């Protein structure tokens, strides 16, 4: 257990200021900045590109540099599982659940297999 805090209320101050405010402030800025844009404007297409590329960057970071126990699996297994999942998503005419299940089956199967071999 980590040294979370000395008083009972300090973690909640942290959660309010460093968690809630530090996160929601971006959403509020977004509200004020986005209120001036039209739904069909070129600027909005660009903003959506930026947001999409940003989330995509987060996705590949989560796969290449994962946190916790997943970091102990080999990189190739995570890539194969993800690629298989995305492929299954396409073949199933873009059903998310099929993609997710395919990736999970591949990951868990490969993991158990490696455990047995290793």
């Amino acid at each position: 257990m980590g040294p979370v805090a000395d008083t009972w209320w300090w973690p909640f101050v942290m959660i309010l200021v460093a968690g809630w405010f530090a996160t929601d402030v971006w959403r509020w800025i977004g509200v004020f900045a986005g209120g001036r844009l039209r739904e069909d404007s070129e600027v909005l297409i660009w903003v959506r590109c930026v947001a999409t590329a940003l989330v995509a960057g987060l996705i590949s970071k989560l796969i290449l540099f994962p946190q916790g126990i997943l970091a102990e699996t080999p990189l190739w297994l995570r890539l194969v599982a993800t690629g298989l999942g995305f492929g299954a998503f396409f073949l199933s005419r873009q059903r998310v659940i099929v993609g997710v299940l395919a990736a999970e089956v591949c990951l868990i199967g490969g993991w158990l297999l490696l455990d047995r071999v290793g």
Partner: protein
Amino acid sequence: MSPPDGVAAIDDADKNLPGRIWMFRGARAAISVPALILTAAFIGYAGLARESGLSLAETLAMTGLIWALPSIVVLTGALNSGMGLIPAAIAVALASVRLMPMTIAFLPLVKIPGKTKTWQLLIASHFVAVTAWVFAMKNLPSYPKEARLPFFVGFGSALTGFVFCMTGIAYLVVERMPDVVAGALVLLTPVYFLCSLWGAALLNADKVAMAAGLVLGPIVFLVAPGLDLLWTGLLGGTAAYFGTRFMRRGFS
């Protein structure tokens, strides 16, 4: 992803329905595969929070107040390592910058100029996180404009409420997860994001931006960690925008 209930059944008469009906329909649309996947990801987080020594109240406060899984994971690490308030706030703010362009892109969908109140938008914006955002970008355009904001608030609050309860239950019930299960829950989020982000892409520009972000993300992270996601978005998104704009309309 199949469209939620009612998408096909919208006609002109629906435009005059009161907001609470649309809120209820939004809440009903939240009963969906993405909601289950997000719930599973938060169950994985509950295990992490418990192992980190967070109390149930702290875990739930973070889930409800922050409502963005990557930022929650960052703050958990900060609390656990006894980081100060300001450094922790900066770390979380860096992890949350992405919510700003997402909110900007989302806003014109729901805002009716001259009619929608700013406080309503500020409340609705709290639900902007990948799951609800992807759902909104994909599905809201097929609803009448008056219906979109209440529908989204209904969707967002139902999703948040359900995930909040399930996170609490998972914290109390799940003693210790087997490694394989914990790891599988962690992989769930990126694979689910990957598929649903592609599903939400409206234009070629969105798809090119997604590919650019996938490639640039890890490279920028290695070169300049910290603000890496913001740079990935700006560089990849701008390149994708101008590349596809040239394809669409030449040099005009």
